[in-house]
């Protein structure tokens, strides 16, 4: 039949040019052409899960500080210590109500305009008036100043202001970044890289900015590609499509251990997976029941099976990387289901039908809400469900949208919630703790639980206590949390990324504020 060779020829004719244009794609293939300088003539490709929906700093999730396009007043180093950002120094007045930040004199926006106090005031005022940002929780009355001096006036003393000023929602943009209605239409920052192109929702291309007043980045062009599925990101690392692949989940990472030409970077995040409980619930309000729930959890087993790392089993709320807050003297949380059963029995709960405990005709049945945005949460929830069933507590797991947790908190219908909480949303955990442990409760913190000693200790710290006084206050907070368990810690968190051997000098930031690409270099392998 004549149709067959004709059709086959057509198929071939169609596929060959497609493959040909494919090999010319601007992926990060190993066959990159070396430029005269020895560096490959292609952008560094970063693949991550963040999507680019909006360039507004209050909603963009810090993408543009991670890409070092925009700067904040204060920055952090790899230990989370505050270091100069746009501000070279800062100090508080005697009464602690006025803070003065001195701006770097040579700082210039990518459009050539000078970084001045007005630009900082615009950025901080916008962030402060947006609900939900850490800057909105600071008692800021006014941001002003002139030239290179920024003045922040407070309504009450707030020692953590510099840490709040490091929050990515406070990134400072040039006046031309804002549209007529005050919304952010483009990102003109002052960092080492400037934006070339933003293609929502999938990619951002940046290039080294000649307005940058620091050392010029060795890697001049960077392309960020959003890839939602972690298995696709893992394959991009294996195929060489990406040089830096972020947000590698433990399962994908385990499968890549043997891949050549790739290095895994890991850093412990100040994030804890925890259970929040309703302190007003007749059962969960009883500290004995909360302790029993904690004892029923085989944290090491869950960390080994789900997070692929037994060291991530939480023995207290704060991970060891939070050196100020992690308390070595605390009695670690342990796993003992027999002890859990006897505690529940002592609290008056007796086995009823189907093995579920009962008291005064009420069955010990609770709902547990969680969400799938972090892949480990649903499997951890089912592991907790099984562990609690073993001691007679029946748990119904509801996996939904993250917002259902604050919504159920507000409605008072929440029993248990499992989520991962970044206790250092700003570089000082105190800012997050003041919200999360507030006596009136918090969306992502305690619910219907308070402790006068803990509230007083947090107040002491907020007023700027230092030295032994601060250490004693922190010990009061950590020991109260460990005894009362208003939030039951489950696991700590480790972030992993995969880097190709074409790149040297990359390190992960535990606060996820920056990918530090300006400090990286192309390796000899990339040039060869």
């Amino acid at each position: 039949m004549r149709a067959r060779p004709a059709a086959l020829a057509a198929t071939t004719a169609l596929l060959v040019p497609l493959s040909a244009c494919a090999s010319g794609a601007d992926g990060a293939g190993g066959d990159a052409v070396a430029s005269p300088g020895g560096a490959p003539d292609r952008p560094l490709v970063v693949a991550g899960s963040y999507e680019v929906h909006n360039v507004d700093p209050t909603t963009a999730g810090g993408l543009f500080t991670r890409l070092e396009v925009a700067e904040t007043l204060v920055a952090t180093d790899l230990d989370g210590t505050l270091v100069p950002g746009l501000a070279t120094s800062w100090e508080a007045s005697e009464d602690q109500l006025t803070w003065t930040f001195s701006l770097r004199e040579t700082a210039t926006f990518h459009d050539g305009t000078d970084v001045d106090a007005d630009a900082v005031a615009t950025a901080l005022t916008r962030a402060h008036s947006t609900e939900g940002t850490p800057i909105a929780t600071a008692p800021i009355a006014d941001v002003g100043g002139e030239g290179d001096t920024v003045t922040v006036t407070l309504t009450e003393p707030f020692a953590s202001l510099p840490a709040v000023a490091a929050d990515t929602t406070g990134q400072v943009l040039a006046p031309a970044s804002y549209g007529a209605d005050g919304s952010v239409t483009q990102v003109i920052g002052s960092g080492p890289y400037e934006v070339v192109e933003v293609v929502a929702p999938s990619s951002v291309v940046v290039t080294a900015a000649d307005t940058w007043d620091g050392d010029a980045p060795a890697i001049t062009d960077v392309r960020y590609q959003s890839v939602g599925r972690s298995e696709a990101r893992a394959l991009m690392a294996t195929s060489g499509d990406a040089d830096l692949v972020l947000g590698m989940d433990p399962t994908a990472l385990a499968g890549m251990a043997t891949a050549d030409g790739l290095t895994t970077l890991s850093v412990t995040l100040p994030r804890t997976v925890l259970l929040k409980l309703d302190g007003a619930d007749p059962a969960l309000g009883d500290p004995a029941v909360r302790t029993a729930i904690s004892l029923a959890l085989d944290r090491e087993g869950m960390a080994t099976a789900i997070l692929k790392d037994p060291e991530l089993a939480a023995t207290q709320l704060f991970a060891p990387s939070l050196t100020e807050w992690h308390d070595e003297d605390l009695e670690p949380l342990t796993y003992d289901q027999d002890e859990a059963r006897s505690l529940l029995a002592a609290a008056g709960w007796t086995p009823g039908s189907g093995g579920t405990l009962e008291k005064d005709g009420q069955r010990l049945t609770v709902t547990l809400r969680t969400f799938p945005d972090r892949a480990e949460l649903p499997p951890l929830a089912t592991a907790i469900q099984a562990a609690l069933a073993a001691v007679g507590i029946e748990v119904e797991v509801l996996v939904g949208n993250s917002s259902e947790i604050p919504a159920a908190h507000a409605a008072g219908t929440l029993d248990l919630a499992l989520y991962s909480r970044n206790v250092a949303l700003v570089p000082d955990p105190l800012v997050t703790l003041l919200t999360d442990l507030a006596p009136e409760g918090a969306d992502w913190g305690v619910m219907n639980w308070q402790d006068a000693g803990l509230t007083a200790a947090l107040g002491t710290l907020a007023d700027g206590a230092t030295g032994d006084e601060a250490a004693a206050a922190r010990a009061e907070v950590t020991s109260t949390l460990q005894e009362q368990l208003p939030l039951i810690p489950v696991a700590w968190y480790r972030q992993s990324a995969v880097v190709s051997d074409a790149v040297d000098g990359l390190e992960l930031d535990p606060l996820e504020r920056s990918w530090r690409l300006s400090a990286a270099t192309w390796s000899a392998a990339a040039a060869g």
Partner: protein
Amino acid sequence: MSTGAPAGTATTPPDVTDGDRTDQDGAAPAALPPVTDGGVGRAVLLLLVRRALQAVGVVVAVTTACFAIMHTLPGDAAYRIAAGRYGYDFVTAASAEAVRAELGLDRPPWQQLVGWWGDAARLQLGTSLVTGADVRHEVLHGLGHTLQLAGLALLLASVLGIAAGAAAAHRPGGAVDRLVGTWVVLARSLPPFVVGLLLVVLLAVQAGLLPVAGSGTPAHAVLPALTLAVGLSGLVARVTRDAVVHVRSSEYVRFAQTRGLGAGAVLRRHVLRNVGTTLVAYLGVQALVLVEGVIVVESVFAWPGIGHTLVHGVFWRDVPVIQGTAIALALAVVAVNTVVDVATLLLDPRPRETAVVA
């Protein structure tokens, strides 16, 4: 979703080719009177007007249904939108209330719907509740990417499927036919997710020919399109095979052969055109079924198409985006149906309406 006509039920159309060739041979087995070019033109015009009216009705019905469904879903939209805007670390009761006040979500639903209709009548689709982006722009951006993908997939599937189907029909029950049969079963039973990952491992990771995922260059479209095409090509092959077998065994083809026409002329004049009417209708249905596959495939390959837009819109309760996407998809259905009808009219110009015949 339905996978289209089950194999073996492809109907044999009466020969359409002889309708306008009676002047040459004077023998038309399917004896219907020919229509003039003016008749075809009028039929096409009538069809387009009817389709345009249908499009308006579909848009009103679909968007109203979307609005009603989104408002009857459990959960608080203000919280959903705040979660979409600020992420799970920052969604709080305070940010949800700020969103509610800003967007006027506590207005009665009918006011919101009437307001939206007013905007839509002026071709204003509004802005996304979550990202603040212009919905018309977002939908067109997504639709453009999806059409690229769907177009390339249909092309690949047609080339692969028609070639395989025609080859299989050459000797029904032969080795090629059985091989194609196996391909049909495999291609259709593997979900797009698995096909996509297999193709990535083979063509991107092992062979290094194509990028794994993402967008931005023509090469990025090949793997997702091929993934969709593999699933489609199986059934295209099956339908082509059956149609070709039926047409080839029909009386008018045998008559043409008896008349002494060469195999090539028979294929061109009689087989292809008759198979065409079946195939065009079938491909039209498949173009719509593609949308189902597109949502999964776009997610696997991080392709910023309309499936991606729709999934985010639903997850975030972003009503304007969902309505905009629904309009685009509804209009796409009407457009594809119109193209299929016009193509079928041109391929088979015999009149359908008794009024014209009479």
